[in-house]
């Protein structure tokens, strides 16, 4: 799998489906959860999409701002567990 493509796929998902704004300039290190940009009601959606798209299961207990606050953190988790 081309990792650049996957990362962009993840970014596009977050801006389009979670933020509802494809033009949003989401940076690799932008805080998503601790900043309130993604609210807690969307966390389950992100986990479900990651599993469907990359085959990586994120346990519900891991869905928190310590582990998944940025696109980089989320992507690193996906590549480690693939």
């Amino acid at each position, binding site marked *: 799998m081309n990792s650049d493509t996957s990362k962009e796929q993840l970014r596009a998902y977050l801006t389009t489906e979670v*933020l*509802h704004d494809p033009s*949003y300039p989401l940076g690799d290190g932008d805080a998503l959860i601790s900043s309130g940009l993604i*609210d807690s009601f969307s966390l*389950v959606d992100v986990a479900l999409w990651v599993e469907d798209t990359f085959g990586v299961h994120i346990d*519900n*207990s891991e*869905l928190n701002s310590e582990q998944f606050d940025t696109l980089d953190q989320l992507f690193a988790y996906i590549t480690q567990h693939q």
Partner: protein
Amino acid sequence: MTETLIRRVIALSEQEPDAACLHLRYVDRPERSLTRAEFVAYIRGAARQLHEMGARPGDLVIIVQRDLLTLVTTFFGTSLLGAIPSILPFATEKLDPTRYRTAMAMLLNLARPALLATDTEVVEDVRTLLPEVEEHLPVVAVIEPQPSGRLEVEDHLQAGVKIEDVALLQHSSGTTGLQKGVALSHRAIFAQLDSYGHSIGFSPNDVVVSWLPLYHDMGLIAGFLMPLLGGANLVLMSPFDWVRAPHLLMQAISEHQGTLCWLPNFAYNFCSQKIRDRDLEKVDLSSMRAFVNCSEPAYAASHRLFADRFAPYGLDLGKLTVCYAMAETVFAVSQTSLGMPVQADIVDRSSLRINNLAVPTTDSADAVERILSTGQPIEGMQAQILDTDRNTLPERHVGEIAVKSSYMLNGYFHRPEATEAAFYQGWYLTGDLGYIANGEVFVLGRKKDLLIVGGRNVYPQDIETLAGGVQGVHPGRVAVFGIANAQAGTEEAALVAEVDTEDDEVHNQIRAALRKVIANGSDIAVRHIWLMPPGWLVKTSSGKVARSANREKILEMHPELFPS
């Protein structure tokens, strides 16, 4: 001896010390179950710590805690000392720190709590968010879960408590809500639980499963006091765990053979859409007697979605019920019958919006509204509909819902003028709009948020829902309210939405789309649109947009729009 909340809990533990009563469920730890005797031991442990920190009979103790065991035992531990517990939410990412601090300062000034009980998980946040300069700063007590034997002083402290005394304060949702602590007596709480319990056939055999926060009346009364004072079992989880893992609720019901569960309407959609089949393996919901939809308008579509999704697991529409409730009557006003699907009243939309009449119709066209019943008033409760001059209206006329019961609040804490203003000739004015048909109460929305545009009643939530579907606008981050236009002699609709971009061109596209979608989806056009950056909107403690507070915020920016 006077019966009080804590005495009932202790009496139950003396009758059946080894019976389990409380099961705390977590996303990242094994479940923890407590027997009645263990529960009381932890309550006494919390009471001992509170007493050492200076809590005395009649004191108000504000509870801001995240750990479930600490929270539930600090609540009753406060009660054991003859003091008054009031649970408030802890700060989260969604609450703006400045507003939280302002609200807390108002609360401290008004309510003058002696203690603020917190726990090791949130004590740092609590200290940060306390106002810096404040005359009435309470003692901050960090409570840890510790079992304890009987306190030497407990009988002495309890001796002065009377059944009419304030048992707890319930601060209704909303930062401005902190100004109104609903003071409820032991007598009122027992009377509501008896009456409501009768309407749903509640018994000690029931198993209540709840993820609801305890600072809200639905969570505190139905999802906490009802099972624990009624000798039933409670399976409790944190809302923060449930929102990450909604299947926890279904698994808990299945494992404990749950029978009752209260949920706000959005949770029906959330559970239906976000739980995977693999998390429902071996789940059996057939033990359930009722899910109760309460605390926001209930939608038939949400019930259908939920019933369809969970039908393979033993659920059917007949188990989905609706309740109308408020803190001022302790909890329930009305409740639909268990065991049969909730009736929807199909009425003509234009009659409802223009003439304030709910005219039954059978049309299946666009011009109808399906309003779900909230059932008949429970025992000891009366409801009527009042017009703007406070005359009683006949059935099917829309007006303000007024209620009277044998279990009302003692008053708003330290706010006698607010208490007086809330009543008219002994009737509590709910601020909700609705009508009565065949003795059943139908609730349409809040009176104060209602817009009347060109003679049409416009419920802001309808417009906000439309706006939330526009690309670039987040559902739930829109506020719609009315601004009077004296020249036109009517109100005009105004909308504030949070958007993530500052690009003018995108803003223009969003504005255009909002106007189009709202014009197409409703009878009105929006006059004013403001697009603001994330975090701008004022929200209540439960995360809902506070319309009137946002209206005031716009007023500060645009005084010219609000002629005095």
